[in-house]
């Protein structure tokens, strides 16, 4: 993983000092609310319904054990002893005191962490594939590029006051596990004639106006990555709408002028800067890649390792289930990547206690070279686990509440903090998630349903990714009462699609029944091993709609 040198430490240290001064000026009345707002947001600090919320950057989801232990300590010393993993692979504290935030940032800086640009109208944390470096279908490791983007975008002097927030995702594998088609810029690593480059997509996004991104360049040579990003953001900074915050994202600009015309402007701008200082020289690329080398894998025999594992699995059904759902094939023989589930029934998805953060740190050290990855669906990955140690890891994970074998199933849902915490929310989302988890607690039924993404957002800002859930649930306000709209058919994969609204919304008490009905239709209509999303694409919305609303009337 990337390690700071003296210069990184200086930059982050000076940022802490700067924010300490800004906070003092605000508390002394020298900065107005309006002036303090963008300053605190660019340091990750929101003022929420009950208390401030501090969002910590986890660059492309990567954390080490030292950092996890420090996060645990901060949650104990400055918060209520828990934290929340977000859908941008970040981590949030829900109860810090405003005046403590500079001290928290100083504690983070000691372990090479910060809260820079985790909010505000600037370039946010770059996200990526949680299986980067270990996936079998990987074209190239996206992390060196993510780190170069992190450095390029951190305190970028030209792009700190964009029309609106700006999110970049990089995917390095055949399968898109970084949801690049619903980002302001999606970068897909591609290989052409033995040369690494990038397919560049722009204008995707969720929120009030969900849009699937469009490709503006099929192949960008590796060395030009940063100059091309700079050209895109420069065009957006100059031409993006600033008169209406709901029309200020780049997707609106791209839609308004068309992706072809937008791409033409980007290319014209890029022509002027492509051979400039941002060029990724061979030395610069080698330097960035040097931080993401292989750990010290042992030479293991694939067949022997696999046979031993299957023998263990055949003796223990619970272990076999966990193995099937919560582990992921690794490109190195005898290893697997493991997902720790943060979603047992009754816990808000993504929430972890201080003790659990420390437990994750311990597990990472014991089983996976001391590093973990946060996933955009709010779980935690141990990327490099020896197969022979999986059973021991499973037992340890169970003791700490991380072994719910539900990864990829209906109950492994993405869920925003919703009306319990967020001042933007129209409705609560956590109780809906819990009601669904309680209703569908039969593991055999969940496995029979197979891969099924259910995503819940408490408002149209879509932090819970409801537009790209196979089933999406959206909290809406109906004359002061909380209601829920159900949508079907979304996906954030390489075959990205936006979900369609089923019909009129439901009360909270009705939601689990409606999901039940939808699943019944799927089971009735599916062909053999067909997944929910594929059945939906084959039969469309109508059969679901008829049954759900027939029952309601």
């Amino acid at each position, binding site marked *: 993983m990337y390690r700071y040198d003296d210069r990184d430490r200086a930059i982050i240290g000076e940022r802490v000092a700067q924010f300490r001064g800004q906070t003092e000026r605000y508390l002394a009345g020298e900065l107005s609310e309006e002036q303090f707002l963008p300053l605190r947001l660019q340091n990750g600090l929101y003022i929420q319904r009950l208390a401030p919320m501090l969002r910590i950057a986890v660059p492309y989801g990567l954390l080490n054990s030292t950092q996890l232990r420090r996060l645990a300590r901060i949650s104990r010393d400055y918060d209520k002893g828990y934290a929340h993993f977000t859908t941008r692979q970040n981590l949030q504290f829900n109860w810090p005191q405003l005046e403590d935030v500079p001290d928290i940032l100083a504690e983070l800086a000691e372990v090479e962490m910060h809260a820079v640009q985790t909010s505000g109208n600037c370039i946010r944390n770059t996200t990526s594939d949680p299986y980067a470096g270990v996936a079998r279908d990987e074209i190239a490791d996206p992390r060196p590029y993510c780190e170069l983007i992190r450095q390029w975008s951190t305190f970028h002097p030209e792009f*700190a006051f964009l029309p609106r927030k700006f999110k970049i995702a990089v995917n390095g594998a055949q399968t898109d596990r970084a949801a690049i088609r619903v980002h302001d810029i999606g970068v897909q690593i591609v290989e052409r004639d033995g040369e690494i480059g990038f397919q560049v997509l722009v204008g995707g996004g969720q929120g009030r106006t969900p849009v699937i991104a469009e490709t503006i360049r099929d192949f960008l040579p590796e060395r030009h990555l940063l100059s091309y990003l700079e050209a895109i953001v420069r065009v957006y900074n100059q031409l993006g709408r*600033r008169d209406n915050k709901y029309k200020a994202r780049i997707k609106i600009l791209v839609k308004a002028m068309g992706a072809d015309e937008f791409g033409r402007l980007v290319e014209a701008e890029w022509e002027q800067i492509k051979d400039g200082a941002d060029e990724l020289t061979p030395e610069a690329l080698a330097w960035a890649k040097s931080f993401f080398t292989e750990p010290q894998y042992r030479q293991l025999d694939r067949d022997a390792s696999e046979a031993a594992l299957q023998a263990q699995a055949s003796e223990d059904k619970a272990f076999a289930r966990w193995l099937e759902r919560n582990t992921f094939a690794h490109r190195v023989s005898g290893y697997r990547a493991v997902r720790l589930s943060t979603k047992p029934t009754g816990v808000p998805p993504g929430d972890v206690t201080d003790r659990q953060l420390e437990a994750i740190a311990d597990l990472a050290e014991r089983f996976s070279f001391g590093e973990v990855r946060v996933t955009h669906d709010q779980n935690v990955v141990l990327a490099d686990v020896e197969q022979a140690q999986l059973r021991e890891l499973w037992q340890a994970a169970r003791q700490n509440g991380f072994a719910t074998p539900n990864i990829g199933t209906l109950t492994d849902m993405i869920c925003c903090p919703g009306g319990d915490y967020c001042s933007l929310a129209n409705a609560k989302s956590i109780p809906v998630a819990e009601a669904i988890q309680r209703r569908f607690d039969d593991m055999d039924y969940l496995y029979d349903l197979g891969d099924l993404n259910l995503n819940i957002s408490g408002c149209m800002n879509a932090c819970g990714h409801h537009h790209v859930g196979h089933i999406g649930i959206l909290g809406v306000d109906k004359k002061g009462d909380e209601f829920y709209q159900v949508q079907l058919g979304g996906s954030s994969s390489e075959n990205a699609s936006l979900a369609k609204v089923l019909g009129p919304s439901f009360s909270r008490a009705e939601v689990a029944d409606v999901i039940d009905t939808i699943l019944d239709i799927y089971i009735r209509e599916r062909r053999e091993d067909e997944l929910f999303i594929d059945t939906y694409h084959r039969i469309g919305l109508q059969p679901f709609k008829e049954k759900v609303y027939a029952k309601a009337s």
Partner: protein
Amino acid sequence: MPKPAKLGPQPENPAELIVDGKVVANDWRLLPQSDDDAEITADALAPGRIILPYRVWKDLRGDLAQRRSEIGVWLNSDETAELIGDDAGDLPLIAVHFPAFADGRGFSTGRLLRERYGYTGELRAVGVFMRDQLTYLRRCGFNAFAYEGEQSLAKLLDSMRDFSESYQAAVDEKLPLFRRRGLA
């Protein structure tokens, strides 16, 4: 004839400002935009240094050729650097207006004037930018700050160097940090 767009906020022209890291007296007047811009003539402009709205400058620049050293231009936030383009070299002063501190278009304007059009004269930020934006403005090529807010200019000077190092290439630093590491 199309109706002219409604005029937005106009920059003030404070008596003192920061130029090249020092507090100095402001010896330029600044003409705000008005609905009657099209009727202004070169003869009607009093002698002495003055910063004209872009449209006025564009219309009168031929007539004002003899006064080149005392005619500056200000760009509003919806007016891009390419409107001045290679003519930048003829100007002693270009001001860029920040009608709201959150309107960041002027940062691109500054960089483009310096990096693309080779502008070397005074580049002045006018409008309602904040003390906390000075580092970014400086990095984008601004060397003069006509600040309208309530902080003292001395305090502003304190914030000019919040950062001793930066990751990206910009006007003040020609190479990004990733190309300088290991060279020091």
